[in-house]
Structure formats: structure tokens, C-alpha cells
């Protein structure tokens, strides 16, 4: 009361009030701080451990199982045209659900718990928060997927040595780094959808629908007049794009080589721009 200030029309720039000065040094914050914060957040909740644990379990388990089955049942020459790497596909397809879930939870769970308000008060630059989340999540998802898929690929290749042909270095790159980038981008897209939808269950449903629906719909397109749509749905469905990295696509006309990566990169970039615009405009 004794320090009551007469009303000042405008305080000094930076809000240096004539009242209280904190002894803690003031540091200008940047993206690095937000990244450190998001890293603390992502490593300190159990859902991260659970989803990533299940992911590794699915990728490694199914990969080893497929490798063991093929090496036991097929005789030499049976699969000579194929590469052993392609057996990693099944585990990653199922595992991608975990990455999608984790991606959605990274943003949507903050809205579900109300944590987002605390975060946005601590850091009013909303874009910085979103970018930090994207960077941290993408790095985590990429590293984990790369480790899991590389381990599975090496094991399968050594298990099936002699049964299948030895993969080229290009195939190695696509079957590990390429596919890991694709899965991590798929997770990043989920994170963006989570930020737009702000509801975990809704966003997970949308993403799983986006992964599976085109394939399921195409399965039931019997009419020949829909043949073109059916082929497009098949070829551009996410499971098929994923299999392109193992060079065993469902069709010949669809994406090939590194195309799926450019496609999802474009989609994610567009979605990111949309999410950014919405985040700036909407109330938290």
C-alpha cells in the first residue's frame, strides 16, 4: 500500500515496472528453450513409453516372426527375386498406429488436460510451441523407427541369407531411412491433426481412417466403371505407399521410388500451414 503508484499511462518498454525487479536474470527465450521444454514433456509421461514400447514390440516381434516363418517354410529359389527387407513391412504397418497415437497425444492431450493454457501463458508465441513439438516428436519418432526397422532388416537379411537375394544399398536406404522418414512424417501429420481437432480420440480416429479407409473402400469397388478410382485408391493408400519403399507395390502406375516421401511431405507441409493459421486465430 505504501508503494502505491500513481497511475501511469504507459509503463516503460518491456514492462519494467517501478515496483518489483526479480533477482533471477531475465534471458531472452528462443526456440531452443521450447524444444527443451517439449523434450521434458514428451519423456515425462507414460503414454510415450507405452506407445513407443508397443511400437518397438510390434515392429521387432512381427519382423522376426515373419523372418522365421519364411526361412523355415520356403526352399531356396522360391523367393530369389525378392529382397528380405520387404518382410519388415508388416510390423511397420501395424506399428504406425502407435506412432499416430503418440503424435496425436503430443498435441491433443494438452487440450484435453488444459495444460495448453499453462503452456501458452508461459510462451505466448504459439507458433514456437507448435514448431518445438513438431521437431521433438519428429526426432523421437524418426530415431525409434530407424532403430527398430534397421534392427529388423539386419536380422531378416541374415536369417534369410541364401534364400532371398542380397538387397542393394539403395534398397537398404529406402527400407530403413526412407521408411522411417515416412512413418515419422505420418506421425507428424497426426500431431498436426491433433492440434487442429484438439481431441485425442477424434484425431486418432481420423488418422486411422485415413490410413485404412481408402484400401477398404477400394476393396469393395466391384463395378468396372469405377476401375480407375479403385486403382488410384489402392495405389495412393498409405499402406501401399509404405510398401513402395520395399518395391512391392500393388500396382505399376502408382507412386514409385521415393515418391511416397514427397507426397506425405507435401501433405504435412500444407496441414502444418493450416494448423499454424488456426492456432494463431483461435482461442486457446
Amino acid at each position, binding site marked *: *500500500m*505504501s*508503494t*502505491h*503508484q500513481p*497511475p*501511469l499511462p*504507459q*509503463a*516503460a*518498454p*518491456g*514492462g*519494467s*515496472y*517501478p*515496483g*518489483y*525487479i*526479480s*533477482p*533471477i536474470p*531475465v*534471458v*531472452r*527465450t528462443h526456440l531452443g*528453450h*521450447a524444444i*527443451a*521444454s*517439449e523434450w*521434458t*514433456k514428451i519423456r*515425462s*509421461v*507414460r*503414454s510415450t513409453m507405452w506407445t513407443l514400447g508397443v511400437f518397438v514390440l510390434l515392429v521387432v516381434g512381427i519382423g522376426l516372426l515373419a523372418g522365421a516363418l519364411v526361412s523355415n517354410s520356403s526352399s531356396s529359389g522360391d523367393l530369389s527375386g525378392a529382397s528380405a527387407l520387404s518382410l519388415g513391412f508388416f510390423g511397420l504397418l501395424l506399428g504406425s498406429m502407435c506412432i499416430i497415437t503418440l503424435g496425436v497425444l503430443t498435441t491433443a*492431450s*494438452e487440450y484435453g*488436460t*488444459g*495444460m495448453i*493454457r*499453462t*503452456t*501458452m*501463458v*508461459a*510462451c*505466448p*508465441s504459439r507458433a514456437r510451441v507448435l514448431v518445438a513439438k513438431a521437431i521433438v516428436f519428429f526426432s523421437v519418432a524418426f530415431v525409434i523407427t530407424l532403430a527398430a526397422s534397421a534392427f529388423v532388416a539386419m536380422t531378416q537379411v541374415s536369417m534369410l541369407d541364401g534364400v532371398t537375394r542380397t538387397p542393394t544399398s539403395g534398397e537398404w536406404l529406402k527400407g530403413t531411412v526412407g521408411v522411417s522418414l515416412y512413418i515419422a512424417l505420418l506421425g507428424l501429420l497426426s500431431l498436426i491433426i491433433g492440434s487442429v481437432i484438439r481431441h485425442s480420440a477424434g484425431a486418432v480416429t481420423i488418422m486411422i481412417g485415413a490410413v485404412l479407409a481408402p484400401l477398404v473402400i477400394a476393396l469393395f469397388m466391384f463395378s468396372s466403371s469405377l476401375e480407375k478410382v479403385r486403382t488410384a485408391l489402392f495405389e495412393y493408400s498409405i499402406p501401399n505407399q509404405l510398401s513402395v519403399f520395399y518395391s512391392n507395390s500393388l500396382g505399376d502406375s502408382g507412386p514409385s521410388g521415393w515418391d511416397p516421401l514427397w507426397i506425405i511431405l507435401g501433405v504435412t507441409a500444407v496441414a502444418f500451414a493450416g494448423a499454424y493459421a488456426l492456432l494463431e*486465430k483461435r*482461442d*486457446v
Partner: protein
Amino acid sequence: MIEAVGLTKRYGDKTAVYDLSFRVRPGAVTGFLGPNGSGKSTTMRMILGLDNPTAGAVTIGGYPYRKLPNAARQVGALLDAKAVHGGRSARNHLLSLAQLSAIPARRVDEVLRVVGLQDVAGKRSKGFSLGMGQRLGIAAALLGDPQVLLFDEPVNGLDPEGILWVRNLMKSLAAEGRTVFVSSHLMSEMALTADHLIVIGRGQLLADMSVTDFISANSADFARVRTPDTEPQLREKLSSALTEAGGHVLPEQDGALRVTGLPLPRISDLAHEADVRLWELSPHQASLEEAYMRMTQGAVDYRSSIDQKAGLQQLLPPGAQPPMPVPGQGQPGWYAPPPPQQGGQPFAGPYGAPGAPVAPPGGFGSPQGPYGAPQAAPNPYAQPAPAPAPGPAQPAPAAAPVPAPADLTKPEDAR
């Protein structure tokens, strides 16, 4: 300093906050009061840049919150206690916030000790009680050692020790020269904590003044008079005698009379003249709580009423008296006497003792008196609005016909 100018927020056709202008100054605890749904939290969110105002602006130290450099080091806020991820431990929650604002990590343990959560710092906040959640939220607000602090309902769920602690914390923060803005719907709490009050109802400013001004402007003395229970006719007799003399009489539930507009000696004289014995004649001052209730009763959005249990009750046997309602229930006008100078300059003069010759006694019993005959009015909403919510000088407050807010035209409203 927080400064709001013409702050307005609409959600669809619902106006949450309308044309709110106020200033919160450093060095004092400023209480922010209003009934549920009156727009307190919306205003807080707009101050913190979470919600964009539909019109108007609010600045902290001259900057809108989202343009504030190092916002977390200048402003700390407790919004709602459970705005945390329940799966994260208290320490990790605060650590992530500290990292986000470039605050040294050791500050986390410091604030955990300040709020008394050091023993559960490693526990997931999901298992925290409401009071522990509040403490965690306060810890987050204190983390950046900011000059401006906002607390939304900080004492919710706290134990008496915690309430006392928060009260002293606010005062000491303000004494250090910080700006402390505390919202609450508990007038009694604010009376003890705040130096200055900003009262809103239905998103509009009702009062912006110091607590002492608020008390002197809004509380009114009354006398409680009790006649012998054994002779009800004496009560009637005294009642009419007092009314004739210009006093205003409100029967209380236990048979006593609440008299305003007459000084105590005059009541005694009148009783003597009417040959009525008195069992009690005592002076009372309406509490701040009652003053607040009266001020905001026209602006209450969610009003409780008596549970009628219509059709569920057995018919009373003939001659049986229906049970007396608990005082105050469903009778909004019961609470408080009208302000001392009705219709005059609200909040202008010094404490005007009721019954002082200044106020003609009739002034209290003017036709709009909120409790002309409380028992007789079956519908509490049907009575005329009490004293038009006294506002500060500038905006014509709730009672004025304001064009925009849709909710002011709600049919259940007395206006």
C-alpha cells in the same frame, strides 16, 4: 499494470464480457469479483492472450500479452488448478515450464518448497487433491518471479491453513510492489485480502473502488428488534408503529424484525409509546457479503431456487403450517438493506449512517425497496429490480438499456 479498455468478448450470440474498462495497479491486491458466469475467467483469459477480444484491448505494462517480451518472466498466472497433464509429476511439470521460459531449473525446487509440495514433487499430479492442485498452480505462477500475478479462484479447495497462506502470500507479493489480480466469488475472502475491488456482473463493470469505499458505500446498518414471542400481536403493533414513523420493517424468519431508517433510540421510544415490550434491540451492520449480494443479484446468471418438489409432496393436513423456508432461500431481496442514499450518487458520500437525519426515512422504504413484502411475493423475480446496481461514474451499468448483450434480455430477469 494491467489496463483494459472497452474489452468485449462474444461467443456466438452470447456476450460474456461487455465493454469492460479497468486498471489494475501495482503495489496492491486487486480483487476481481462476480457471480458464476459473470465473465471473470473470460477476462482473465483475454488478459493472458488466450482468448482474442471481440472488441477493445487489454495490455500489461503497455503491451498486449502476446507481444510481451519474456512474458513468463513478467506475468505469472494461476488459471485453473487442473490445467496440468495428470500423468506428469509436479517437478517435471514445473521443469517443462521453467525450460520454456529460460528459468534456471533449481527455481523449480524453490517454488515447490514455497507451496509445500516438495514431498510429493515426484508424484504424478493425477493423484493430487484439489488443494494440492491449487498449490501446484500457484507454484507455476510464482516460477518466473514475475511483477504481475493473476490468480483465478486461488483458494478453491484449500484447507484453512492454505487459505491463510494464500491470503498472506497475496499481501506480501503486493507489498513487494507487484501487481496482484485475484478473482473470486467469495466476497468475505476478498474483504480480508484485497485493497481494491473490481466487481462485474454479466460481463459488465459494476464497481471499481477501494475496499473501504465499497464497504462504506454498500453496507447499511439496521436494527434487530425482537418482541415477546408469546404475544404476536405486539409484533404487529410495533411493526405498524415503526412503519408509520417512517421506518422500514422486514420480518425475519425467527420472528425478529429488521428495521432500517430509524435510529435505535427512536425505535425504543416508539415501542414505549405503543406500549410494546422489547426482548431485543440491537444494532447490526450488513456484511460486505450482503452488500455484494445486493449489488450482483440483478446480474446473477445461475440462480438457485427453492426445491418445490411439485406434485411429489403429500397434501398437508388441514391446518398444518408449511415449513418455513431457510432465510434467504429463493428470496434474493432478503439479503441486504438498500444502500444508504438510494437513487443518489452511489458511492459518493462518506458513510451515511442510516437513520441519520440526512436520509429521509422514507428513502429506505421507497417503492423499489427490494423487500417490500418478501413473504408475499411468490415469484422472487417478479419484484422490481433493487437499487440499480450502483456503478462507478463512467458506464451506465447493468440497469441501463445496453444494446448489445443478448443475455440482458433474458426473460427471467427482473428487468
